[in-house]
């Protein structure tokens, strides 16, 4: 796929995500535009594109199931019990959220399941599948972070205090710069995420960047960012929930540390 084709595909996907209600309807609409074939044939294009767009548009769909299933060599379209932070497990239903209020991001059709009773199945136990899932969620988290940065940047330019836009104040500018740097760094780790460790580190970096974005952008947005009428809180909820899925940044960072201490050397994954 060349750059122009990729651009066209991105536009089509963005259109689908903004025009279709998130959840089951978006699952169906993405199936319509060929998500399954794209995932099977060009996962290295499909995953970064689709998942970062989910983040940027604020949409959601249950595609992480497909990413794990496809990587495990199983038929896509079903669900997998997914590891969650703290030794928990969840299922990402292929239906609309029931709105039972259990999950911080109530729009997501996530259901906690008993980790002792749940059968994670082959996909969730397969390290290759887990790595693929973490990489996909990493792209989503970076997209969510970029959505927050965009909201905060717009606000900083529009909002006037002391006779000038608050974007003119260095304290505000530096928070936004910090957010941008974290997101760019995380994206770089995603471009290098090939093996298990690379995907683990990329998910950790992306989770951290999204949490940094939430913190800085909410502060820049001030009072309006704390209201339900502003879109920011949707993205913050999403970042927090996605960070926990397949291991949160804190857990993954600790695992990376344990690994290099056991190996007595830190792998250099990025090569010229």
């Amino acid at each position, binding site marked *: 796929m060349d750059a122009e084709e990729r651009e066209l595909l991105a536009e089509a996907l963005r259109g689908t995500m903004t025009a279709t209600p998130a959840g089951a309807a978006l699952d169906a609409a993405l199936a319509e535009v060929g998500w399954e074939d794209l995932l099977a044939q060009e996962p290295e294009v499909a995953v970064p594109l689709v998942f970062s767009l989910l983040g940027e548009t604020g949409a959601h769909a249950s595609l992480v199931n497909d990413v794990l299933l496809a990587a495990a060599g199983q038929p896509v379209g079903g669900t997998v019990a997914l590891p969650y932070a703290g030794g928990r497990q969840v299922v990402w239903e292929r239906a609309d959220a029931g709105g039972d209020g259990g999950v911080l991001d109530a729009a997501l059709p996530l259901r906690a399941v008993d980790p002792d009773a749940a059968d994670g199945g082959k996909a969730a136990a397969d390290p290759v599948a887990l790595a693929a899932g973490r990489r996909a969620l990493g792209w989503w988290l970076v997209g969510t972070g970029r959505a927050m940065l965009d909201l905060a*940047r717009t606000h*900083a*330019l529009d909002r006037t205090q002391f006779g000038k*836009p608050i*974007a*003119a*104040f*260095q304290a505000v*500018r*530096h928070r*936004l*710069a*910090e957010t*941008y*740097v974290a997101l*760019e*760094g*995380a994206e*770089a*780790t995603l*471009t*290098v995420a090939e093996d298990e460790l690379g995907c683990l*580190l990329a998910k*950790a*970096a992306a989770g*951290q960047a999204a949490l940094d974005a939430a913190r800085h952008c909410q502060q820049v947005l001030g009072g309006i960012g704390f209201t339900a009428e502003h879109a920011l809180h949707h993205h913050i909820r999403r970042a927090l929930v996605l960070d926990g899925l397949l291991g949160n940044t*804190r857990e*993954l*960072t*600790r*695992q*990376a*540390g*344990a690994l*290099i*201490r056991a190996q*007595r*050397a*830190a792998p*250099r*994954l*990025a*090569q*010229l």
Partner: protein
Amino acid sequence: MSPTSLVPAGFVPPVDGKTATVEEFRAAVRAWLDEHAAGLAKPADHSLDAEVAQLGKVRRALFDAGWMRYGWPVEAGGLGGPDVLRAVLGEEVAARDLTDATNYSLVEVLAPTMISYAKGELAAEMLPWLLSGREQWCQGFSEPGSGSDLASLTTRALQREDGAWVVNGQKVWTSLAQYAQRCVLLTRTAPGHAGITAFFVDMDTPGITVRPLRTMHGVDEFAEVFFDDVVVPHERMLGKEGDGWSLAMDLLPYERSTCFWHRITYLFTRLDRLVADADTDGSEPTATTDAAVGAAYLALHTVRCRSRNTQRRLAAGANLGPETSVDKILLATAEQLLSNTARDVLPGVIELADSDWRTEYLYSRAATIYGGTAEIQRNIVARRLLNLGKD
């Protein structure tokens, strides 16, 4: 003096720089470094004199074998081939801890400047002296009154009737000036950014006084340099009158690509050492140490990924610009986090033992100051990458 006069008689290039892949070049460099490991090993003497002597020795050996000349143009005494070959060589040198990575990488900012701006045969004549380790060069940019605001510099150059220039003023933070035979010097010849002019100055010219600065980490690698009626021939002007600011800006991409790659390689060797040292301590719960070490690794991995992508963009012919401030922020942050982690997981080592970790820790405090402060980098990101307008 012709550039080839420094090349050993009967020299045959070990590989073809234009056709060798990165992997082939790396394998050949590794084999050579392994073969010559004993002769290149760092001496036990940690003094700066010994370090600079070692730097000269390593460069000389790499130059004589040809490795140091790859990635530099043939017209300037190099052997040609892409820039990335220099990143690979520096990575292998840093990975073996043969020299201080920062000092080794000074070539990366000095040589491109000469190639782009020196008049006539000057670059071809002088560069081999630098690359072969026979000379050290320094960079006279910062001044006591001009740090972050470099364009406000006041070291003055006035042209005499015979065409030569007379320089008066003071530079500071000039790395290795006390060892340098030459200096790439920024001076003021007129007001404003367009009034900055660069010269290539011989450090033994009468009127130059160098005074090393005692730094916090105990290594006198920076110096103050005083210029009192120092006469510089007109032919030693780099570029034209007023080109100094562009010269300073043009070297940023080199500083932020190949130099950073070398520095990151060096920091990974220190992370490996931290992992080894941390094992023997055992004064805190394993999970706590794992988390701290993991965070340092994640930060270093992140900047390495970013820098790899920057190298690839450079190789693809991209012009590097303000986005390299992201690399700079990630690197400075990772470097300080690594030293902070060392202090955390090796309690007392920095305070009570005169170890390498103490030097590392203290030196890392400067990472957010040199090469453009953390605040200046964030200003650049805000202004140029986020388009937030003027502050």
